[in-house]
C-alpha cells in the first residue's frame, strides 16, 4: 500500500506528543461525532506500485488504439513533434502552481506570453488570454463577454460543432442570455435567416470556420450582417486551418476562439485540451481568464506577471466577468512548443496537407460511389452520403484497424484527413468502403 507520507508511525507519534495529542483520533477529537465516518471507507485496499501499474495497464489495454484515423468532429490526430513531449514533461513546469509568485515563475509566465503572441499571430487578433478549458467553453465565454446592458441575445450558427452549441447553451442557461440558433442551408449558415434574427438586442453572432461539416462559411458576409446590427462577431476556428485560411480578423471578427488540441495535444479521450481566446484590443478588459503581461523588476530587468487581474474573480468576486482561474497552462505550453517546432512554413504545410488529403479522399470516395455533400469549399473534413449504411462502412473499416469518419446519421459520415493519413491509408480505406 502506497501512501507518499514520509513520516513513519513512530515519527507521527512523536510529533503528536510534541504538540500535545495522544493520537490521530485525539487530533481529530474536536470534530463532532455525529458527522464522523463510522466504519471506514468502502473502497478497495491500497496497492503497491507494481500492482497499480499492472491494473491500470490492463484497463488501458481494454481500449482499442486505431493506427489509422479518419475521424475528427472536434478532436484531431496530428503529428506531435518529439520535442513537445520532452518539454512538457519537465517536472518544474509540470508540478508548479499558477504563477502567482512571479519571481520564481518566469519560465511559465514567459511561455504564456509567447503563447499569447502566437495565438494573436494565428488569429490576427490583438490580445489573447492564457487559455481556457477547451473550444466549447471558450465559445461560451466569448458569447458571455459580448453581453452588454442592452444586448443580451446571442445568435449561434446551427453549423457549429454540436458540443460547442450544447456548451454555449448551458452557459446561457446559467447567465440567462437569450440564445437563438441560426438555421443552416445547404450545410452552411443561412444568411437570410441570420438577417431576420439579428436585431438591436443581439450581443453577438457566433459561427464556426470551417464549420462542423468542414465547409467554409461565407464568413465575411456574416460578419457584415452582425456588425451592421451593432453586434459583435465571434468566430470559432480550427487553428491548423489558419496556416492557409483567412484569419478571423481578416474575415472581420471581433473575437476568435477555438480548441488548441490540434496544436500538439494528443487525443486523450477528449482531454485535457485547451481553449484559446483572442480579441481586438477594444475588448481586452472583457476577456476572461488569466493574461500575462510584460513589465520590469526593481532593477529594470524585463519580466512577466499575471496582469489585468482587476477583471478576475479573486479581486472582483461577484463582479468578475468569469470565474475562470486554473486554466490549461501546461497545454498552452505544449501549443507554444508545437508552434515553435512547426514554424510558419511548417504550420502552413500541415494545413496544406490536411486539405489536400481530404480533397483527395473525397474524390476517391466519390469514385467509390459515395456522394460528397459539401457544396462549397471545405478544409479537412467533409460529409459523404452513401447507399450502404454508415454503420456497415465503419464496421468494415474497424475490422482493418481503421477508425472511419463520424456517423452523422444512418447514411451520412463526417470524414477527416490530416497529415497523418498517407495516400496509401486513404486508398486502403476507400477500397474497403467500396467493398461494403
Amino acid at each position, binding site marked *: 500500500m502506497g501512501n507518499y507520507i514520509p513520516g513513519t508511525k513512530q515519527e507521527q507519534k512523536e510529533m503528536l506528543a510534541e504538540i500535545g495529542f495522544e493520537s490521530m483520533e485525539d487530533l481529530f477529537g474536536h470534530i463532532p461525532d455525529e458527522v464522523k465516518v463510522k466504519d471506514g471507507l468502502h473502497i478497495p485496499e491500497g496497492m503497491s506500485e507494481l500492482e*497499480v501499474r499492472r491494473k491500470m495497464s490492463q484497463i488501458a489495454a481494454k481500449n482499442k488504439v486505431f493506427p489509422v484515423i479518419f475521424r475528427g468532429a472536434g478532436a484531431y490526430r496530428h503529428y506531435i513533434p518529439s520535442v513537445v513531449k520532452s518539454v512538457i514533461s519537465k517536472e518544474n513546469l509540470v508540478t508548479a502552481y499558477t504563477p502567482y509568485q512571479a519571481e520564481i515563475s518566469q*519560465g511559465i509566465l514567459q511561455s504564456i506570453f509567447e503563447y499569447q503572441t502566437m495565438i494573436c499571430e494565428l488569429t490576427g487578433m490583438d490580445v489573447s488570454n492564457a487559455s481556457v478549458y477547451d473550444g466549447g467553453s471558450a465559445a461560451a465565454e466569448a458569447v458571455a463577454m459580448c453581453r452588454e446592458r442592452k444586448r443580451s441575445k446571442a445568435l449561434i450558427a446551427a453549423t457549429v460543432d454540436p458540443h460547442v452549441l450544447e456548451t454555449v447553451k448551458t452557459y446561457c442557461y446559467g447567465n440567462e442570455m437569450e440564445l437563438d440558433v441560426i438555421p443552416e442551408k445547404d450545410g452552411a449558415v443561412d444568411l437570410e435567416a441570420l438577417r431576420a434574427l439579428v436585431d438591436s438586442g443581439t450581443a453577438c453572432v457566433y459561427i464556426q470556420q470551417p464549420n462542423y461539416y468542414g465547409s467554409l462559411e461565407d464568413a465575411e458576409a456574416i460578419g457584415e450582417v452582425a456588425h451592421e446590427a451593432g453586434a459583435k462577431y465571434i468566430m470559432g476556428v480550427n487553428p491548423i486551418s489558419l496556416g492557409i485560411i483567412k484569419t478571423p480578423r481578416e474575415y472581420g471578427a471581433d473575437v476568435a476562439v477555438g480548441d488548441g488540441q490540434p496544436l500538439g495535444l494528443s487525443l486523450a479521450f477528449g482531454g485535457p485540451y485547451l481553449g484559446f481566446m483572442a480579441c481586438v484590443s477594444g475588448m481586452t478588459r472583457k476577456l476572461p481568464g488569466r493574461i500575462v503581461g510584460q513589465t520590469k523588476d526593481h532593477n529594470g530587468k524585463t519580466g512577466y506577471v499575471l496582469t489585468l487581474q482587476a477583471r478576475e474573480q479573486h479581486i472582483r468576486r461577484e463582479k468578475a466577468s468569469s470565474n475562470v482561474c*486554473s486554466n490549461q497552462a501546461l*497545454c498552452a505550453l505544449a501549443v507554444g512548443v508545437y508552434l515553435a517546432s512547426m514554424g510558419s512554413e511548417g504550420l502552413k504545410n500541415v494545413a496544406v496537407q490536411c486539405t489536400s488529403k481530404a480533397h483527395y479522399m473525397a474524390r476517391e470516395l466519390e469514385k467509390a460511389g459515395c456522394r460528397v455533400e459539401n457544396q462549397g469549399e471545405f478544409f479537412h473534413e467533409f460529409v459523404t452520403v452513401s447507399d450502404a449504411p454508415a454503420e456497415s462502412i465503419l464496421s468494415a473499416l474497424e475490422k482493418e484497424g481503421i477508425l472511419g469518419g463520424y456517423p452523422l446519421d444512418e447514411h451520412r459520415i463526417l470524414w477527416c484527413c490530416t497529415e497523418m493519413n498517407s495516400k496509401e491509408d486513404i486508398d486502403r480505406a476507400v477500397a474497403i468502403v467500396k467493398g461494403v
Partner: protein
Amino acid sequence: MLIFEKGKEGRGLSLLPECDVEVIMPEDKNRRERALHLPQLSETEISRHYTELAKKCHGVNDGFYPLGSCTMKYNPKINEDMASLPGFTEIHPLQPEHTVQGCMEVMKTLEDYLCEITGMERMTLQPAAGAHGEFTGLLLIKAYHESRGDKKRTKIIVPDSAHGTNPASAVMAGYSVVSVPSGEDGCVDLEKLKEAAGDDVAGLMLTNPNTVGLFDKNILEITRIIHDCGGQCYYDGANLNAVMGTVRPGDMGFDVIHLNLHKTFSTPHGGGGPGSGPVGCKEHLVQFLPSVLVEGTEELSFKKAEHSIGEMKDFYGNFLVAVRALTYVMTLGKEGIPEASGNAVLNANYMMYKLKDLYTMAYDEVCMHEFVMSLSDLKKKTGVAAMDIAKGLLDNGIHPPTMYFPLIVDEALMVEPTETESKETLDQAIQVFRELYKLAEEDAEKLHMAPVNTPVTRLDEVGAARHPVLRYEFEK
C-alpha cells in the same frame, strides 16, 4: 530572451514527409493573406529555449510548497507513467463505445471511489477545474429548483471568508450573492445565517474545514438551516484534503460538491492547469448532471441524465487527469486515503504549534490541514508585511504561503504543508520562518527588498496593468 527574438528566417525542423497527393489550396477569397510570424528555430534552439525557461520555475520537486488552499502535495511519478500509456493517450473521444471500455472503466471506477469518499450518489468528471465545477454545481441547484417550479430563489449565500470563485460562479449561474459575515471564531455566524435564510435562497456555498483552516462544528445546524428554508447546500471541495475518511460532505448535509483532483488527488497543477473539478451530488440531483454517465458492470455504456443541464464543455472532462487521480486513489486505498488526511492535519498543527509563540495565529485553535497567520502585529511593529515575509521565503528556496487570503484576516499568510512533507522539511521551514521574523525586527529594509536570489526581483505589477504589453510586437 523571447523565442521570437531567437532563430532566423528559414530555420526549422523536418517533421513531415512531402505531401503525397495533389496539393489543393483554398480559393483566394478564403486564403490567408496576413503574414504569419511563428518562430523559425532549429531543434537545438527550441530545446535550449525551454530548458532555460524551465530553470526559472519552481515546482514541487524544487522544495517545500506550503501554498494554503492549493494542496501542493507531491505528484507521484507513477501517475505520470499511467497517464502516458498509449491505450489512454491515443483514444479518440468519439470512438465506438465497445472500443473505449477501458476509458469508461477509468471514469466509472474513479466516480465510484470519489462518491464513496464524499458521500455522494453520482459524480460527473466533465468540469475541467474547481471553478468550472462550482458553476456546474450551481446549475444543478438551479435546475432542481426550476424542476419543482420554484422560481423565486434568486440568491446564493456565501460566507465572507469564501474563495473569490464562489461569488463569481454564483453570478455566472444567474444568482445574486448574499455575503454572510463570519463570527469571531472564523466560522459561520449562525444568527446571521438564519437571518439570510429564506424562500429566496437557492443555496449556500461552503467549505468545511473553512478557509481559515477550522472545522465548523455547527455544520449540521448550518446545512439544516438551509434545507429548512428550501435551499441546497454546496460544498466547495478545496479543503477536502483535511477530512477524507473522517467526515464526508454528504454526511454533513451537503447536496452537491466539487472536488479538485489537482489538489486533493495529487495530479500536478501544470503551472495553472489542466486541473479537474468533478461534481458529485445526492440522488435528487442526479437527473440534472451534465455530459454522460457511465452505466453497466460488464459492458459499460454512456447514458445522459434524464434532465441533464447539458454540456459544460466538449467531451468528458480532462480525462488524463482522471487517470492520474484514479492511479492515486488505487494506490492509497481505504487506509491510505484517511492517512493522507490525518498527516496533512498533523503537519499543519505541528507547524502552527512551532510558530505560534512568534507569529500571531488568526485563530489559536486546533487547525485542520492549514492555518492562517496574521502579520498585522508584525507589520505595525516593523513595517514588514505578509508580502515581505513571503518574498523572504523565496530567497530561502521555499514557496510562500497564500498571501492576503482569506480577506477576513488582516495581513494573512495561509500555510498548508500537506502530508507529503517530512518532519525535517517542516523543521527547516519553521526555522526559516523564525529567522525571517527576527530579520524583520532587525533589518526590515532587507525584507522589503527581497527576493534577491531569484531570476528577477519584485516586478512592477501596477505598471504592467496600467500599460499592458500582452504580446510581442514583430517589426513591420
